[in-house]
């Protein structure tokens, strides 16, 4: 983990509520796909945890949805704004278990962390299939970006306005895969948990206090004991997940 100042070099709308922000600074502590960063905002007490979409030598990209006053504030920040950010948080996805034909399933703003994951898996020579699930056509983002990486991409919309009508699990049925990686709303994770025929990894979300394992604000029960979503997660293996309700 590292605390440092980052400069916004891009902050653009991808849809009416989803934005892409590129931050320039010391990204050396960002190691794995599926990690998150924690951003301090003027006038907000708690930092805002946002998953990493992509990282290169000098920048980190996040794709975030405006859901409250904090993310709304972020969406209005001009290029050049400097932010106090903690980076290198969370465990991230374990790529070593992917097999040859990994399937990546993202729902809504669960899509972004899969981007860097897809990039790395493809670089490792894996045959990557991606299913991106959205409610409706207007909410779709990053379809072309995943295609440009060389992944086979399917898009589902719940209302059928684009791609396959239904949920990501409807597309999943017809795909041959060796392992799965997913991130999205909890009902989607549960559905994938039931529908999947292989092992896999799921990234979870919870309201956090610190984001680095100190406060126990985001604890959950798993089959292998109590875990902190922020430090022991956000990625959990299918075998350890305990659904509580």
């Amino acid at each position, binding site marked *: *983990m590292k*605390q440092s100042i980052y400069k916004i070099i891009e902050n653009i709308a991808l849809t009416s509520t989803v934005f892409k922000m590129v931050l320039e600074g010391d990204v050396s502590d960002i190691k794995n796909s599926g990690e998150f960063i924690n951003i*301090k905002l003027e006038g*907000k*007490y*708690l*930092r805002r945890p946002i998953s990493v979409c992509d990282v290169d030598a000098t920048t980190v990209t996040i794709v975030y949805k405006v859901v409250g006053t*904090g993310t709304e504030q972020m969406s209005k920040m001009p290029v050049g704004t400097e932010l106090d950010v*903690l980076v290198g948080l969370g465990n991230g996805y374990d790529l070593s278990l992917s097999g040859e034909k990994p399937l990546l399933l993202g729902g809504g703003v669960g899509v972004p962390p899969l981007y860097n994951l897809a990039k790395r898996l493809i670089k490792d020579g894996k045959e990557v299939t991606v299913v991106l699930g959205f409610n409706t056509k207007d909410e779709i983002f990053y379809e072309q970006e995943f295609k440009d990486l060389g992944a086979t991409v399917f898009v589902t919309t719940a209302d059928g306005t684009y791609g396959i009508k239904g949920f990501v699990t409807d597309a999943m049925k017809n795909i041959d895969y060796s392992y799965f990686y997913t991130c999205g709303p909890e009902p989607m994770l549960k559905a994938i948990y039931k529908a999947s025929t292989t092992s896999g990894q799921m990234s979870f979300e*919870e*309201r*956090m*206090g*610190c984001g*680095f*394992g*100190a*406060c*126990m*604000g*985001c*604890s*959950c*029960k798993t089959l292998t004991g*109590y875990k902190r979503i922020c*430090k022991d997660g956000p990625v959990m293996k299918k075998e350890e997940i305990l659904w509580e309700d």
Partner: protein
Amino acid sequence: MGRLSVNLCGIELDNPIIPASGTFGYGYEFAELYDINCLGTFSFKGTTKDPRFGNPTPRIAECKNGMINAVGLQNPGVEKVVSEELPKLKKCFNKKVMANVSGFAVEDYAYTCQMLDKEEQVGWLEVNVSCPNVHGGGMSFGTCPEAAAEVTAAVKKVTTKPVIIKLSPNVTDIVSIAKACEAAGADGISLINTLLGMRIDLRTKKPVIANKMGGFSGDAIFPVAVRMVYQVANAVNIPVVGMGGVSTAEDVIELMLAGATAVEVGAANLIDPFVCRDIINDLPAVMDKYKINSLQEIIGGCK
């Protein structure tokens, strides 16, 4: 003694800065970030007789200039704290540590304190009679002078280490509770724990926190802490450890002027993990600015 050092219940601290319980784990997460031996000491995660998962999530809510938590004393229980956490703590911290203890019955407090009394690294027992996030215990002991005194007396019987009773601000007369603890043998008082608070989500029209209510902490509660430290320090003859919304060297000096011998830093650690190290580094220059020669001399300096 250095100009930053203070004496807390017979043990000298290099400086008065103590990360507060529940915001610093058992130390080792922060030891990955900086050498925590720069601290005066730290108060480790509230420990109970039995293991506890704590409350359901969400446990955290944002507030203006603060936050609410309802973690609910998640901890592995005193036996595992002794067998697993303290050995790890010892590897990254070579000073006396403050053991924070909570319970649901007087006997629980005594049992946990007796176990921790045997640990050489434990310098002080900070007995939390003020947790707002557990039912049938915690704060209920700290809102009544007789119950607080009963816990104090029971703990004093099982330990020779200094016992500091951590009080709740959610009371009408904090002075009477502090005095009852002192009369029952407390070696020190720490305050304030969090203020009971609540937030409601306008979209769902439901409480943000699963436990509905939780403990409000952060910058916003600092004036309450100053007031209560001042009231208690002027009413008892034992050291007071001040806390509540502290995030700067100036805050530390203000609480010490109000009567605090040492100062705990809580929620600020969660926002800025380096805050305690930075406060310690900032203190000499801030002392110079206000013409303060040594911190020990300013304790209770505001009359």
